[in-house]
């Protein structure tokens, strides 16, 4: 699978989560995110974390992916922790370094914010790890559909996004090839001022653009040759029909959220 750049974070699988309708998955995610912002106790947060982990287990996603997905927020989390620890006052003084004090209120708030962030990322990861970028695009384009009434070409936008998804790995591969070729000729992308670095990227970006435009040209022709016509009616191979199990899954999420909110967990 990892022969070269893989697209997005999708992990192939056949779990219930993989098979759920992308549209309903998106709605469920939005609901859960709103819930995360409404809740204000550690116990509710703990329950959400438990739910997220249970869903990860259900999706059969290896633990390592979960950690890898969390890595980008590590720095934000650390930063938030430091800010809250040192600059929020209230509660008892836990310890003192010179003139800086760490107080219990700050520690509590900091941990709460970070834990909330972690759970939020975990829920989002659940969506992106179990949904192909293409279904995700189709799912999101569904919510854009009303905009077609005011003249926006939503079908075409969805097609553009799908084609972009298709070509991102190809163009990334190409840019790596170009970079290696430039390195072999003694190019230096690492040292020097920011202007020098930007300058050394020019021999990379120009051929990349030229090739991308040529690709676009050829692709447009190939699409036309295969009967694609802007504005013409199309169908889809995988129609994302919403089935009973999808509604059931959404209902479960809503019930859980409602319970948590009413009992003020």
């Amino acid at each position, binding site marked *: 699978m990892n022969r070269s750049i893989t697209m997005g974070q999708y992990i192939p699988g056949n779990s219930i989560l993989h098979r759920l309708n992308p549209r309903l998955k998106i709605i469920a995610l939005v609901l859960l995110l709103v819930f995360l912002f409404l809740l204000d106790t550690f116990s509710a947060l703990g329950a959400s974390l438990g739910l997220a982990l249970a869903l990860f287990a259900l999706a059969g996603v290896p633990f390592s992916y979960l950690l890898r997905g969390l890595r980008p927020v590590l720095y934000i989390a650390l930063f938030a922790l430091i800010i809250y620890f040192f600059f929020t006052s209230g509660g008892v003084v836990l310890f003192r370094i010179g003139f800086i004090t760490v107080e219990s209120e700050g520690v509590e708030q900091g941990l709460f914010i970070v834990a909330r962030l972690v759970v939020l990322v975990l829920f989002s990861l659940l969506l992106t790890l179990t949904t192909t970028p293409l279904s995700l695009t189709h799912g999101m384009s569904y919510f854009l559909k009303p905009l077609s009434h005011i003249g926006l070409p939503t079908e075409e936008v969805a097609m553009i996004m799908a084609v972009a998804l298709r070509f991102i*790995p190809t163009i990334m591969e190409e840019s790596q090839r170009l970079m290696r070729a430039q390195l072999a000729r003694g190019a230096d992308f690492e040292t020097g001022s920011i202007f020098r670095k930007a300058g050394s990227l020019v021999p990379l970006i120009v051929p990349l653009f030229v090739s991308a435009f040529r690709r676009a040209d*050829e692709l447009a022709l*190939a*699409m036309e040759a*295969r009967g694609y016509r802007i504005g013409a009616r*199309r*169908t889809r191979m995988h129609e994302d029909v919403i089935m009973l199990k999808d509604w059931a899954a959404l209902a479960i999420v809503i019930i859980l959220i409602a319970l948590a909110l009413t009992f003020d967990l």
Partner: protein
Amino acid sequence: MHGQSSIIVESKDVEFYYSGEEETVWPALSGISFTVNQGEYVALVGPNGSGKTTLLKLFNALLIPSRGEVLVKGISTANEDTLPEVRRTCGMIFQNPDNQLVATTVEEDIAFGLENLALPSREIQNRVLETARLLGLEKLLKQPPHLLSGGEKQRVAIAGVLAMEPKCILMDEPTAMLDPAGCREVLKTVRKLNRERGLAVIHVTHFPEEAAGADRIVVLNEGQLIADGAPGEVLTNLPLLHSLGLRGTAAVELAALLRADGCPLPPQILHNRELVDSLCSLEQNS
């Protein structure tokens, strides 16, 4: 079988100019008249810039003749309303396998043309499966295109066209960017489809060995059709080929050298096998 009689593609005295002003520019094609029948495998050869790609695009209605007309199954390509029918009948495979795959997975790509035909999803799924099986792609259905080899990509492209049940496939140097293994893989696939399904093939190539496998060879030069005949006729006509900067097959070239050296070889040698056989029989006779 309908036999060899039914005409799939017909070009009637076609002339084509790339820019609108006909008087000032040279036509990319002129006076092109020929027909391709069902089940025929035609190789289209000619020097660079002779108009091969242009001619294929005319057959797929990507371009419309400036004069004359192109008929696909009797339908003129100039008619906007029948465009889908024309493109469905004559599918096109391009040179670069990378730039003709549209979708993020093999199955979605094979489905692309069918989706454009607005078929019901059930039927699309069936046809995609069927076509993938035919071309040995069933294990790759969920793969993203960038993880495929060149030969596999080109086969996916063929599958995408084939799923639309065309009568003819137009191939523009489909093996130019492939390694020898990928080349063989693609050519074998196409030849099989041609033999077993009676699919007409128009194959642009600059490899004489590929052209030698066709039923018929058409030669273009500077936008004009200058030869049209069986491989045994056209590819053995070395004065013609050499004057255009083209080559015959290795066997033809070698046989010509041997003849010049006084070796009495028969004139119609095309394939390596034939050359070897002739040489062996010469040896026995002497």
